[in-house]
């Protein structure tokens, strides 16, 4: 009974027009996501993981940056709690993003929130907030979200599995992973809508470089904090209209 309703729900989401829109908005960057997935798959094998464990890792962990951070720790035999603490810190940006997810999906049943949370990768978050900048629930949001996941998940997982299986034959020294960076670059440019977004993005970039020496990719958290502060200060002291005049 419950399962039947679950599939009815899933079918309703699938047929919703915003499901397609969510998938389409993600489609432009899937090439970059795939390049990154491929490189991550290769990296897992090169670090010494067995094929079975590498497949397990990509299929259930589903978080590239935390996987890459974990590989040297696994290879050097670090204690399990160090591995988990590292994964948590590398994922701290998601904790920040989740406060916003609550504004949109906080009223859904808990199982649905758990599923949304698990699949809410960086690019799903970016595309979603671009589509729904106003933080209030809307029936189009869930199908849009799942449409994005339907594009993002296979675009990451299929190349990642290929990378695991063909690790020895894929030339990583050409810097293919850079395609992932270029995808993010194009996506960022599409989000630069006004002066404050340019300035806050610039602040984030500089802060990320300046704080690069911090462990566990905490420079990303520092950069987000700096960009939020910069954006708010600009809004307060130098509102857009006055700046234009």
């Amino acid at each position, binding site marked *: 009974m419950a399962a039947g309703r679950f599939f009815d729900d899933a079918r309703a989401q699938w047929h919703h027009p915003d499901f397609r829109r969510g998938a389409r908005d993600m489609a432009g960057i899937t090439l970059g996501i795939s390049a990154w997935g491929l490189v991550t798959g290769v990296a897992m094998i090169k670090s010494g993981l067995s094929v079975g464990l590498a497949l397990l*890792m990509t299929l259930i962990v589903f978080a590239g940056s935390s996987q890459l951070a974990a590989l040297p720790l696994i290879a050097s035999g670090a204690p399990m709690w160090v591995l988990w603490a590292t994964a948590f810190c590398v994922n701290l940006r998601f904790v920040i993003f989740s406060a916003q997810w609550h504004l949109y999906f906080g009223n859904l049943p808990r199982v649905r*929130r758990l599923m949304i949370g698990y699949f809410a990768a960086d690019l799903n978050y970016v595309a979603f907030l671009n589509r729904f900048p106003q933080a209030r629930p809307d029936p189009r949001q869930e199908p849009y979200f799942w449409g994005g996941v339907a594009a993002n998940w296979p675009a990451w997982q299929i190349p990642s599995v290929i990378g695991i299986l063909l690790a020895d034959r894929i030339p990583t020294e050409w810097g293919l992973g850079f395609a992932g960076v270029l995808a993010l670059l*194009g996506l960022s440019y599409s989000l630069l809508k006004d002066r404050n977004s340019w300035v806050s993005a610039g602040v*984030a970039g500089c802060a990320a470089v300046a704080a690069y020496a911090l462990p566990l990719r905490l420079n990303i958290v520092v950069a987000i904090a700096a960009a939020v502060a910069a954006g708010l200060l600009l809004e307060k002291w130098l509102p857009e209209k006055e700046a234009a005049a």
Partner: protein
Amino acid sequence: MSEWETGLAIVGMALVTLITRGFFLYPEREVPLPAWLKQGLRYAPLAALAAVIVPEVVMSQGRLIGTWQDARLFATAAATVYYFSRRGILGTIVTGTAVMLTLRIGLNW
């Protein structure tokens, strides 16, 4: 770590993914965020992207790169020109990657 211990560690990492991605989404009650912070978090998505991209372009092995003969700089410049003249993300990726591969393989940069 033995094979099964590593497996357990990986399962734990999957739980970390689940927990962190929905950290404030799972509790029933909304986290009482101050209004200014809600407003300010609008800048977070772009900031997170910039924070990943910029070091990937201008740093290697934890330092700013000291030479202009780096394929990444030219790939980024080409991708930027493409984006602002044509506006497609796919073309941006293809253009940048083409420049990257040409310089890497052709000039060994």
